[in-house]
């Protein structure tokens, strides 16, 4: 008995250094990649905006303006950092930090690729394969509202406060529809783990979008709203709220808020790709026939390709549609999206029941 306990204690104490190192490296890579993608998303946004308005977009810094995000970042770093004297300083600084933190944290449960054997170890391209992956994402995304709320409140500015309130109510309203649209999907998959959902799509014939077109659409619209992207960019409505919750922010704190938005966009596009578009499943390619590294690269290519297409659609929508009025936003959320999501849920439930019999 004591032996057993000892062994158990030993295994508990035996710290798997290689495992820790592997995950640390993976986290570092994922954070770097999301930062770089977010950086170039700002560039892509300006280019897309330009092209859609018959302009060329930034093309002066470096070839094709590729150094523009660096120049922008440098500019933000060199700006004077102003903290309003009437603000509560701790919260004022905490706001952008929270926004950035929650934006980065969601990437932990995304399966970036399949498992691959590297040097005798099976490396999992997912930081944490927790069996409540989607629940975790929802939790962290709701935390993200705090960044906006705290930032807006601590600024001690009426526009910021109003924008923060708007942002919070918008996020809450659309999270409901988002969750409901996902429940229908979860009825089909029977799992909350993103890895399982992806593998089901790889093994099955079709991606989830085929089974859940309405669910996909609702989830897409809701993630637009969650990312505060146009046409749901009410929290930062320049024309009415004067930059919204980041009005009092300057220098890199403003940069953090803006950056968090782009990271959020990248992550939510990845999540949409994972949930509905097969994740790292390359269409028309049988991954099982490929060797380890090739399959990994093909998977990464597939996931990033899907993500970038989705990001382009996000931008495309932003530069096409005008902003919703606040009552329109609430009407759409509560009177259209939630009933549709409920309907979708009921129909899916009925179909699942029938199929089981």
């Amino acid at each position: 008995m004591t032996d057993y306990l000892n062994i158990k204690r030993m295994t508990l104490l035996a710290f798997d250094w290689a495992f820790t190192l592997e995950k640390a490296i993976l986290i570092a890579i994922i954070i770097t990649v999301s930062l770089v993608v977010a950086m170039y998303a700002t560039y892509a946004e300006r280019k897309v905006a330009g092209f859609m308005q018959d302009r060329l977009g930034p093309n002066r810094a470096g070839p094709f303006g590729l150094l523009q995000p660096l120049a922008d970042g440098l500019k933000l770093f060199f700006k004077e950092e102003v903290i309003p004297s009437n603000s509560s300083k701790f919260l004022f600084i905490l706001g952008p930090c929270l926004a950035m933190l929650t934006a980065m944290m969601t990437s932990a449960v995304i399966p970036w690729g399949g498992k691959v054997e590297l040097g005798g170890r099976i490396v999992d391209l997912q930081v944490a394969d927790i069996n409540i992956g989607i629940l975790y994402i929802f939790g962290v995304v709701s935390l993200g509202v705090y960044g906006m709320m705290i930032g807006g409140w601590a600024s001690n500015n009426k526009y910021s406060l109003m924008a923060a309130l708007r942002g919070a109510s918008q996020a809450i309203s659309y999270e409901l529809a988002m969750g409901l649209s996902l429940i229908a999907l979860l009825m089909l998959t029977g799992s909350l783990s993103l890895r399982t959902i992806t593998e089901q799509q790889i093994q099955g014939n079709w991606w989830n979008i085929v089974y859940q077109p309405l669910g996909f659409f609702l989830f897409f619209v809701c993630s637009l709203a969650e990312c505060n992207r146009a046409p749901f960019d009410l929290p930062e409505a320049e024309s009415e709220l004067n930059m919204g919750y980041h009005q009092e922010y300057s220098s890199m704190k403003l940069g953090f808020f803006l950056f968090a938005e782009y990271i959020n966009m990248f992550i939510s596009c990845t999540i949409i790709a994972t949930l509905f578009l097969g994740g790292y499943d390359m269409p028309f390619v049988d991954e099982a026939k490929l060797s380890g590294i090739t399959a990994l690269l093909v998977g990464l290519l597939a996931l990033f390709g899907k993500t970038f297409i989705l990001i382009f659609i996000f931008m495309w929508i932003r530069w096409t549609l005008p902003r919703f009025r606040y009552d329109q936003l609430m009407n759409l959320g509560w009177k259209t999206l939630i009933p549709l999501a409920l309907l979708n849920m009921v129909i899916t439930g009925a179909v699942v029941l029938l199929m089981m019999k």
Partner: protein
Amino acid sequence: MDALTQRAKMVDRRPMNWLERIYLWEIFKGMAITLKHFFKKKVTIQYPEQTRPFSPVFRGLQILNRDEEGRERCTACGLCAVACPAEAITMEGAERLPGEEHLYREEKYAAKYEINMLRCIFCGLCEEACPKDAIYLSETFAPANYNRKSFIYGKPDLLIPDPVTRPEEYARAKGLIDKKKNLALKHTKTNELK
């Protein structure tokens, strides 16, 4: 009342039908339009590398002309300064000394010739007033500068390059003048015909 043009469009005030009320179809239509613009040819002229072609009557910065041997044509008669409605031109005349015949075409020349480009309205009246073909408006416009003083152009800024020492640059600047001359000639001819 009849419309002056054919471009007037009646405003459609019919109530929206179902497809329009759910907005989705209209959103897709809008997105199709923006996508069409995405692939359209861009209208941007990338300024320092590309320039917009000017019309032949464009009036830009003045140049002081030389003759074929590179001698300055200006005799500091002051007609341009008199003609100038903005009073942008000032000059000082001087007498040509023996040995300076290769520099100045006639016995009198402009020792100082200044145009204040902040005053100048680029009307071209100086060009019309000049009896000696000495001043022309070119196709360049005043570049940006950091202080007011540098907008007062002196003789070194205004003089056309010497055809003897810098023939290529002279030819390029001269081309503009010739173009103008031809245009003016054509203009007077058509007037005479009338």
